[in-house]
């Protein structure tokens, strides 16, 4: 391959670093009204009265919206396939407020100062209720978070709002109770994961205007422009044909922008005033009032035989969706479906639980999407089982893990909100990843620990992971390629580059098939008026689903070119050789440039365009093995991450450097969750960790060394052999770190993040036990 699997620089990095206008707010109308949101100071309350008269008297205040002024129509902010598997439990503005930071009113004014002043003049009286701040007590709590009428599920998802249940699910293969009884060894443990923040560098932002055709034009920093258009239309009763959603450059998403957060407000302001408007979330609002990862409690029970054969996995999960049920069921199901098949030879597996409401910030999509939570619990539990069996954790995994050519019944049983799709692992290089990672980390020299003296100890730990590549039969991507005079192409995709580099890798796929270079493929993403449909950037679908659509479009375009060349040269199509530049027969030739000019200006004039669409019939998982090396100080519990080794099977990496960037960026986000990112709420339910000062994300000083390699792998159903690579990297760090800490000091941390305090507490408790025994 000439273009694919090479180190091509991203097509946009230079212009962005040079400061070209690119992001949503760079493109806002300079005269846009500034939209600000009045947010709830209470975790759970009902608005008894709201008086906006003093605020409206301010000069420069154009509009104030309260729950009296907006359509009473429930919807979900989640940007997902339609009908959504998330309950419709949100109103644009409601008489109830369900977390500290929930929307109370919306102000539009001519300046930021005026808008802020107006917020302070709105008088609200609340009836304050007892909030549900502990999700383990949410089920059938006397405080019902969604008591209102008019909310519903789109299809059965176990929605029971009167019990504070957003969704529930259960499945079982084999008879779990009986198999567990027959096991030689059984371990049982509960694990807790926290509400990690996405912390993308660009805060949420969206602006709106009405154009000269009287249409609503939205510029949004979104992962899902087409879902934004649909949800706006459905909720605001504006015809779909009257809405245009443009996705400019997006400054990071990670799932946090797979939802509507400001879109409703700027749309309503602009529709009501006729004037352009914009909203820029403050960093505090991003933390307090957008999305988090779903916090979970995972109760694991594993059973095995003395020879190290894993027989049973029983998993009960309680997930906290916060105030609204966005992505509640689907994240929960991925916790099982993209984790449990790793050990496909068990006799019985059970996965059940519920997703409950609480009066915390709403949880939503976040890279890993449940798999990181499930991976932390299962891969920690596997090491606990190995300790009890006195068996090497790598040997145990090699004996029990999924391999190429195998399958798991879970693929067919569990999809995302619905049933799944049966599939066989056509590519699974997990065995290679495990072996290679062992070499790269120096496992045999360092496992389980090396005493360094001065109370320091070095240790290693590991975990394996899988993810998916899009959602079969649901996620659709499409691409259109247009030929221009002089012989270059436009590639128009609905696929959403949010910084992961999809514009570049999709250009590479087109260029490879058209045998040209990346600079001859001009990419445009995404604009609901101009680009074909794509579900958006989520579920690790862009390379596999949208990439396949691009490949189909490019192949169609190539055939069209050959037909036109045959016509121009008056020969049979089979007599032409095309190398991307020149069409050659035995004794004549025409260049692509000349052919394109001929088609534009001279003879047989026509515009050539080709559109390809793709919807997956399976979701080939990428796999990886993650190994961590740490140094721990036994006196203080302090730990230093020395090296993180990732060996990844993502099929063909379309762009080696960008794929490596996806893995390493995800590893460091995963390490953030594993090690640093502590979420703290006050006793009244307000988020304390609501800025970078009190919510620490990894900095350049926290990362010493990342070692990343790709397994040789070719997935036949993917474009040029590719699977996905966007999420897989985030899954292993929590379990790998927990396992390494155990190997270092014998302390098993079951609650993230793994802080020095928790490690030291464990060490001290051990010492206490030793004294008493």
């Amino acid at each position, binding site marked *: 391959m000439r273009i694919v699997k090479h*180190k091509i*620089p*991203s097509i*946009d*990095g*230079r212009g*962005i*670093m*040079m*400061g*070209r*206008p*690119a*992001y949503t*707010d*760079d493109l806002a109308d300079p005269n846009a009204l500034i939209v600000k949101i009045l947010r709830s100071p209470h975790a759970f309350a009902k608005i008894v009265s709201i008086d906006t008269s003093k605020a409206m008297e301010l000069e420069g205040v154009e509009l104030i919206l309260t729950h009296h002024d907006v359509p009473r129509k429930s919807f979900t902010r989640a940007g997902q396939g339609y009908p959504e598997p998330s309950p419709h439990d949100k109103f644009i503005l409601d008489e109830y407020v369900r977390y500290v930071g929930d929307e109370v009113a919306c102000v539009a004014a001519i300046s930021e*100062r005026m808008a802020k002043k107006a917020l302070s003049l709105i008088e609200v009286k609340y009836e304050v209720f007892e909030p549900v701040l502990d999700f383990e007590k949410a089920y059938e709590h006397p405080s019902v978070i969604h008591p209102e009428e008019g909310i519903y599920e789109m299809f059965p998802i176990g929605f029971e709002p009167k019990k504070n249940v957003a969704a529930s699910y259960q499945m079982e293969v084999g008879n779990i109770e009986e198999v567990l009884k027959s096991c030689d060894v059984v371990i049982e443990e509960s694990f807790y994961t926290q509400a990690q923040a*996405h*912390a*993308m*560098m*660009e*805060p949420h932002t969206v602006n709106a205007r009405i154009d000269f055709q009287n249409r609503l034009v939205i510029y949004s920093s979104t992962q899902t422009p087409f879902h934004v258009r649909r949800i706006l239309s459905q909720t605001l009763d504006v015809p779909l044909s009257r809405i245009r959603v443009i996705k400019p*450059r*997006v*400054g*990071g998403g*990670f799932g946090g922008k797979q939802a509507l957060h400001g879109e409703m407000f700027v749309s309503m302001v602009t529709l009501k005033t006729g004037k352009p408007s914009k909203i*820029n979330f*403050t*960093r505090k609002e991003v933390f307090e009032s957008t999305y988090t990862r779903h916090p979970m409690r995972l109760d694991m029970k594993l059973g095995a035989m003395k020879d190290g054969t894993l027989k049973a996995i029983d998993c009960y999960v309680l997930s906290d969706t916060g105030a609204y049920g966005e992505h509640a069921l689907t994240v929960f199901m991925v916790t099982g479906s993209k984790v449990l098949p790793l050990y496909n030879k068990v006799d019985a597996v059970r996965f059940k639980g519920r997703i409950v409401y609480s009066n915390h910030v709403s949880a939503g999509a976040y890279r890993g999407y449940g798999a990181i939570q499930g991976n932390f619990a299962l891969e920690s539990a596997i090491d606990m089982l190995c300790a009890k069996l006195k068996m090497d954790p790598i040997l145990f995994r090699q004996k029990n893990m999924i391999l190429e050519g195998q399958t798991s019944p879970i693929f067919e049983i569990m999809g995302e909100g619905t049933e799944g799709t049966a599939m066989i692992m056509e590519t699974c290089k997990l065995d290679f990843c495990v072996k290679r990672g062992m070499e790269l980390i120096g496992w045999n020299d360092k496992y389980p620990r090396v005493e360094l003296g001065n109370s320091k100890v070095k240790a290693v730990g590991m975990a394996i992971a899988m993810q998916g590549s899009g959602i079969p039969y649901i996620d659709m991507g499409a691409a259109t390629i247009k030929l221009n005079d002089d012989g270059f192409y436009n590639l128009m995709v609905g696929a959403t580059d*949010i*910084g*992961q*580099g999809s514009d570049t890798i999709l250009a590479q796929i087109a260029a490879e098939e058209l045998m040209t270079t990346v600079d001859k493929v001009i990419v445009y993403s995404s604009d609901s008026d101009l680009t074909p449909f794509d579900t958006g950037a989520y579920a690790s679908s862009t390379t596999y689903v949208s990439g396949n659509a691009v490949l189909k479009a490019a192949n169609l375009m190539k055939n069209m070119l050959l037909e036109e060349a045959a016509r121009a040269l008056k020969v049979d199509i089979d007599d032409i050789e095309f190398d991307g530049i020149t069409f050659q027969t035995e004794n004549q030739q025409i260049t692509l440039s000349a052919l394109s000019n001929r088609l534009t200006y001279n003879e047989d004039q026509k515009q050539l365009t080709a559109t390809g669409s793709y919807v997956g019939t399976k979701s080939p998982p990428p796999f990886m093995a993650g190994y961590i090396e740490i140094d721990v100080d036994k006196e203080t519990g302090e730990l230093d991450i020395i090296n993180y080794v990732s060996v990844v099977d993502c099929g063909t990496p379309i*762009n*080696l*450097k*960008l794929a*490596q*960037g996806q893995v*390493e*960026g*995800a*590893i*460091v*986000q995963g390490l953030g969750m594993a090690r640093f990112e502590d979420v703290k709420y006050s006793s009244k339910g307000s988020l304390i960790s609501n*800025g*970078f*000062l009190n919510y620490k*994300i*990894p*900095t*350049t*000083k926290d*990362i010493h*060394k*990342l070692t990343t390699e790709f397994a040789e792998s070719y997935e036949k159903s993917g474009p040029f052999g590719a699977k996905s690579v966007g999420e897989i990297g985030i899954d292993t760090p929590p379990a790998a770190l927990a396992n390494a800490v155990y190997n270092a000091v014998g302390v098993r941390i079951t609650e993230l993040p793994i802080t020095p305090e928790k490690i030291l507490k464990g060490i001290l408790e051990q010492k206490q036990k030793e004294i008493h025994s």
Partner: protein
Amino acid sequence: MKVQFTLNGRNRIFEVSPDEYLLETLRNNHITSVRNGCDESTCGVCTVLFDSKPVLSCTMLTARVDGHHITTVEGVQNEVEHISHYFGDEGADQCGFCNVGLALTLHALKSEIKDPTDEEIKTYIVGNLCRCSGYQAQFRAIKRFLGDQK
């Protein structure tokens, strides 16, 4: 109030309110390369050069800039384009939202510290947060860029 300063080598006069921050003044005057990441001096996105030193424009009052030199990437285009090639080669640019601020910080680092150690580089750029890259590719690009300046 009137504030006068040199913006990218040219003398400019701006009418601002006393509580206005430089980030706002610049964006209101079409310097959209300077962007807001956190509005509380914690992320490095809004970095500009104040008399050649990196500062955070989101918490720098415009009034304080009076009589000084402010440089944004518009003022060092050739230099930043040069840096961007190293980032491209290493695959270090993802969403790019932090890259403008980082490029300006690197520009300052290069002239401020000769032959910096790895630790000195990391200390200098630690305030430029990035959530995409995991820092490894960035660091490789920065090392190569600085190495080639010798």
